[in-house]
């Protein structure tokens, strides 16, 4: 019985840095958080996607709140904005861009204004003044009021009306009236009828902390001054001002100027800590295939009515890149885009003290690589999770529990169940057949038929190697175990004369091709060359081909399997996500051991693609689909006319491997293996057997407990007269509830725990 050393203590304080740069470059590939193209093109950074979503839902109050964030006077901005957002709208590539500006205008007209602001808001201490008129002055006064600065406008006009008329002469009557009301409602002080000359400036200068002005006033007062456009600031004169162009230009200028005022008010250099201003580049990927309404909603009047605006906003396809989350059950389960999940998993590896809350998510990825294929930027979640697992192992923080059963199974495959023999009559062989541990566990008859066929039809001798390729150690991040496995397999291959490995499983082929001096080929390629053996048959109904994640990126294997199926006479139906885009069945990456729930969702994701029976070329896929009740066959079962039948439970999988090995040893090599035979009856109820399968308790664990009881007689008897015995096996204590029968025992229940338990004195 093999054993794996449990992690010694939780009090291990070791950190092994994964290169932060590498992790950051991996995370940067995810474009989920990139802004949509409309927002990226807006220098004011309107969240146009959220704005249109709210408008489409008829929630104009929310839409207006979003718009007011960038526009203190929404009707002024929407009336004259040049709308660069529309030019970048992805719909413009296949139809009309969403008429964002017109929707803004309708929202500004129909939306209920926010009740924020007003005179009751606490104000900042530093006072500001805006001299002059014009769009820039208007927007700047609005921005400063929004930032809660006491702001006073000094202008030559004699009233709010005349000032607003000069600032936004293009407004229609209704819009003018609405914006005038808005202006009067804002906490902005006015001094009308001012003569904005040097004398006036000299008088006011000392009364305010920050002075701002329109470009006309600046040109009049300081004709020689030269404002820095990025800051909207004349340094020598300490004057916030600048030239702007157009409505959007004025609004953007006012935004920059307001930030400069912020910095100056805090006595800080206006150049620093300004953040990202203006337009940005976005690499967001958008799937345009689901866009429906490509034509702009017609306008019945001068602008959209409320209903028309709702309909037009509803044309927005809400650009989001969720390609991986659409196809991957794992990412969908955790509801996190891979950029964010990767960051969290990276942080999980760097925790020295405290809870590693991302252990389960890190171990739940199937490492199948589908995300890398479906992601427009090739994001590799498998690499992130795999590196993180290795890192956790190297710092002795990786719990053994989620992977122990699978790792022990790998050791079982390469110890008790391992077999390496040259073909009878040969000392070394040209080939060795390596069916893979799952094939021997699930379909031993098929493995036997395939081996006998290869021996008969290939020249140069075909050796047989029953074992595990090491993928399990690799998936668990146990790089040392994987290395040991590789070393062991290389020694065994060397004894056979380093033959060409004929792999029965695409994952084994991938793993074994990494061994030095090892040439590999898939059994499917050999069968195509040799032709089909007798006895094969097709499925009676059209079937869906499920591509193995081990064959991702391997077009030759995918094509060879289809060719085999067609030669057999199978009719294949098309499914979404096939070939390189195929999802994992839930076995890959040991997901089914670490997180049964996510693995079940993965299986479901595979099966929802078609109602047809499934043909696969990985035994684990075959097994998981059959366990879900779907008719599921491995391509080799069809080739050899065998039927592995109902999926075996965990104990039968071990039993099958041993029986296959011992049977072949006897039949082909005339060797007799020692079989452990119990000299008493050991019967399991169906409920017990099912319970053991769910709880990962093997028949041999139960035997160990019963054997222990037979030796030391230690057990308790409960009120129903049933016996309960226990035994520590490896890192777990197994408990078995049983009754005595005439010639042995009837097992009724079994459970286990990993904690050790001792009697305590005092």
């Amino acid at each position, binding site marked *: 019985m093999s054993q794996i050393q449990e992690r010694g203590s939780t009090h291990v304080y070791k950190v092994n840095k994964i290169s932060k740069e590498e992790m950051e470059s991996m995370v940067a590939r995810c474009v989920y958080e990139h802004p949509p193209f409309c927002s990226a093109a807006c220098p004011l950074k309107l969240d146009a996607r959220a704005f249109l979503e709210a408008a489409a839902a008829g929630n104009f109050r929310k839409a207006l709140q979003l718009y007011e964030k960038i526009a203190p006077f929404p009707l002024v901005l929407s009336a004259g904005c040049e709308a660069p957002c529309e030019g970048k709208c992805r719909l413009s590539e296949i139809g009309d861009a969403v008429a964002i500006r017109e929707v803004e205008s309708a929202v500004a007209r129909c939306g209920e204004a926010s009740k924020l602001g007003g005179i009751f808001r606490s104000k900042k201490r530093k006072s500001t003044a805006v001299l002059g008129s014009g769009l820039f002055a208007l927007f700047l006064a609005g921005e400063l009021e929004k930032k809660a600065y006491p702001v006073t406008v000094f202008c030559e006009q004699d009233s709010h009306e005349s000032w607003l008329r000069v600032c936004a002469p293009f407004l229609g009557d209704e819009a003018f009236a609405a914006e005038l009301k808005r202006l009067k409602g804002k906490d902005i002080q006015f001094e009308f009828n001012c003569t904005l000359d040097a004398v006036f400036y000299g008088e006011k200068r000392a009364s305010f902390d920050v002075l701002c002005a329109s470009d006309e006033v600046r040109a009049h007062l300081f004709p020689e001054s030269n404002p820095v456009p990025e800051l909207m600031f004349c340094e020598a004169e300490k004057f916030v001002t600048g030239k702007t162009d157009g409505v959007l230009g004025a609004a953007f200028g006012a935004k920059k100027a307001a930030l400069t005022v912020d910095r100056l008010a805090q006595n800080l250099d206006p150049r620093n800590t300004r953040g990202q201003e203006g337009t940005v580049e976005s690499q967001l990927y958008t799937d345009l295939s689901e866009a429906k309404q490509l034509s702009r909603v017609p306008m019945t009047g001068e602008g959209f009515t409320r209903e028309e605006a709702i309909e037009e906003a509803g044309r927005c396809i809400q650009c989001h890149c969720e390609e991986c989350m659409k196809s991957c059950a794992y990412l969908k389960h955790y509801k996190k885009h891979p950029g964010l999940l990767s960051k969290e998993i990276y942080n999980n590896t760097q925790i020295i003290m405290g*809870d590693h809350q991302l252990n389960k998510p890190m171990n739940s990825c199937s490492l199948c690589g589908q995300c890398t294929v479906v992601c427009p930027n090739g994001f590799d979640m498998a690499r992130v999770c795999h590196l993180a697992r290795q890192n956790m192992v190297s710092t002795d923080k990786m719990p053994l*529990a989620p992977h122990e059963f699978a790792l022990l199974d790998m050791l079982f495959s390469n110890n008790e169940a391992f077999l390496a023999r040259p073909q009878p009559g040969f000392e070394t062989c040209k080939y060795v057949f390596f069916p893979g541990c799952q094939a021997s566990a699930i379909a031993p008859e098929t493995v036997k038929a395939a081996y006998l066929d290869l021996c008969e039809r290939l020249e140069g001798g075909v050796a047989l190697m029953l074992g595990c390729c090491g993928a399990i150690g690799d998936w668990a991040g146990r790089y040392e175990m994987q290395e040991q496995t590789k070393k062991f397999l290389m020694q065994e291959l060397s004894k056979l004369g380093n033959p060409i490995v004929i792999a029965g499983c695409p994952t084994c082929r991938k793993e074994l091709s990494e061994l030095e001096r090892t040439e590999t080929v898939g059994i499917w390629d050999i069968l195509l060359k040799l032709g089909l053996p007798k006895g094969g048959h097709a499925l009676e109904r059209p079937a869906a081909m499920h591509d193995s994640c081990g064959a991702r990126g391997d077009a030759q294997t995918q094509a060879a399997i289809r060719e085999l199926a067609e030669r057999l006479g199978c009719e294949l139906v098309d499914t979404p996500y096939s070939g390189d885009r195929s999802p994992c069945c839930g076995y890959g990456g040991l997901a089914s051991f670490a997180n049964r729930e996510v693995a079940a969702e993965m299986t479901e994701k595979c099966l929802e693609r078609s109602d047809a029976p499934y043909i696969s070329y990985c035994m684990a896929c075959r097994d998981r689909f059959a366990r879900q009740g779907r008719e599921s066959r491995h391509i080799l079962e069809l080739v050899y006319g065998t039927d592995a039948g109902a999926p075996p439970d965990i104990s039968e999988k071990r039993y099958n491997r041993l029986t296959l090995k011992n049977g072949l040893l006897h039949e082909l090599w005339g060797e007799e293996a020692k079989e452990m035979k119990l000299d008493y009856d050991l019967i399991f109820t169906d409920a017990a057997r099912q319970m053991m399968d769910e709880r990962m308790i093997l028949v041999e664990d139960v035997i160990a407990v019963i054997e222990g009881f037979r030796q030391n007689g230690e057990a308790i008897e409960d009120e129903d007269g049933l016996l309960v015995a226990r035994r520590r096996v490896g890192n777990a204590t197994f408990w078995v509830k049983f009754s005595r029968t005439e010639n042995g025992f009837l097992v009724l229940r079994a459970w286990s725990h990993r904690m050790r338990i001792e009697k305590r004195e005092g």
Partner: protein
Amino acid sequence: MAEKNYYTIDPQGKLTCVKCGVPLVKGKAKFLYLDNGFPVELPVCPVCGFVYVPEELALGKVASVERALEDK
């Protein structure tokens, strides 16, 4: 309050140690895992010290404490 004690021991003493032929009693025991220890009270044989971990305890509290420690 039963929650704090991991397990409420059946006061009737219906469990018997097969080897010693005596009823199990409420006794002192400890759980040990990953270099951490917890004192608990469980049914124990007063003669040989056999400590009984019932199924519901193993699958419930014990399993959840195991998970929590594994992620430390």
